């Protein structure tokens, strides 16, 4: 390969890469507002799923330590909270939405994102055939306090076989949301 050919190759590659970059940038700029709209709508839907009692809507709030939560309203009353919790799983950070009613009982749980091991930890989002919701996360509904721990930790939640770390991470996240974060959110409400 002589240096002229080399230069030509480099130039062609750079030109193609440049054009591809421009096309990608343009497409991204064009669809970004639409993608944001879609993800907003899906957040609203997820919030409704984990706290169905909030018929009027949700107000976004923050707690100390970068925790985002949503106050669920029905008419003018607060009917509960939805906490956006991140918890360390086995191979990823698991992001959860935890709905808690005003007495501290979990009303719903949804896994927003996770990259756990397929076939093991990723079964936290597994839907059994014939079922509508993931069976693991549905177990938390209607429970509160110490019941939100795994059975082997003295609570009422069945762990996923072979995925204790992922199961415990989810349970820990929900326990924290319905306990500490719930208390903090209530305190913030009283003050306000």
């Amino acid at each position, binding site marked *: 390969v002589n240096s002229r*050919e080399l230069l030509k190759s480099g130039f*062609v590659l750079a030109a*193609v890469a440049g054009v591809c970059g421009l096309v990608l940038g343009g497409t991204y700029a064009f669809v970004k507002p639409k993608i944001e709209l879609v993800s907003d709508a899906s957040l609203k839907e997820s919030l409704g799923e984990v706290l169905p009692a909030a018929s009027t809507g949700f107000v976004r709030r923050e707690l100390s330590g970068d925790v985002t939560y949503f106050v669920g309203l029905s008419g003018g009353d607060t009917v509960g909270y939805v906490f956006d919790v991140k918890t360390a799983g086995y191979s990823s950070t698991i992001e959860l939405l935890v709905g808690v009613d005003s007495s501290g009982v979990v009303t719903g749980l949804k896994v927003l994102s996770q990259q756990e091991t397929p076939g093991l930890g990723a079964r936290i989002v597994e839907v059994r055939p014939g079922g509508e919701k993931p069976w693991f996360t549905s177990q938390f509904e209607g429970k509160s306090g110490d019941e939100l721990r795994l059975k082997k930790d003295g609570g009422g939640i069945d762990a996923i076989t072979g995925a204790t770390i992922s199961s415990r991470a989810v349970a820990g996240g929900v326990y924290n949301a319905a306990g500490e974060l719930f208390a903090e959110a209530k305190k913030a409400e009283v003050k306000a």
Partner: protein
Amino acid sequence: LTEASCHGGEVCATAQKKPSYLSEFTKGIIRQNPIFGLVLGLCPTLAVTTSVENGVGMGIATIFVLVGSCFMISLLRKNIPSQIRIPIFILIIATFVTVTDLVMTAYTPALSKSLGIFVPLIVVNCIVFGRVEAFSSKQPVLNSVLDAAGMGAGFTLALILLGGVRELLGTGSIVFAGRVLLSLPIAGASAMLIASGAYLTLGLVLGASRRIGRLLK
């Protein structure tokens, strides 16, 4: 990938003459069907064929990437130095895939969620790379586009067929765009929807298609 010079396999010996535009398109649908003939692109095939809807979505996304990439590469084929053709092919294919992925995320979020990682993974789909390397980097633009469209259509039809079998046996009915197209009087066997069902269906349908092909000869 030696078929490139003579447009593929068995026709090689008999047809050394220039193939018609029509056969350039139709060869990908039956004779050289990417899945049943060439047996390429099996990863996404096994993974997304849980329903007819997924098959259609994946098929359309792949057709777009395939036709776009083959068009661009055929257009640029005389200006691409052969020692850097691979990175250039990948750049062009990856650009089309990323554009497809972004557009699907924005406009068909449900489909994009159900296809998940397999849309970005079209980048490494052997069908796209195979057609680019074996065909469109050496053929005129019109032939390349027809070849790509035919291959894409063949891939899509194969996905729909496999998805249909698995959805029908797995859930007991075929639902497309919210409407029930076909339903069985029995409950579905969920094993058809997981990996084992994918292998079983692909193996049986592939075997049947070979058998039919031999009978027709």
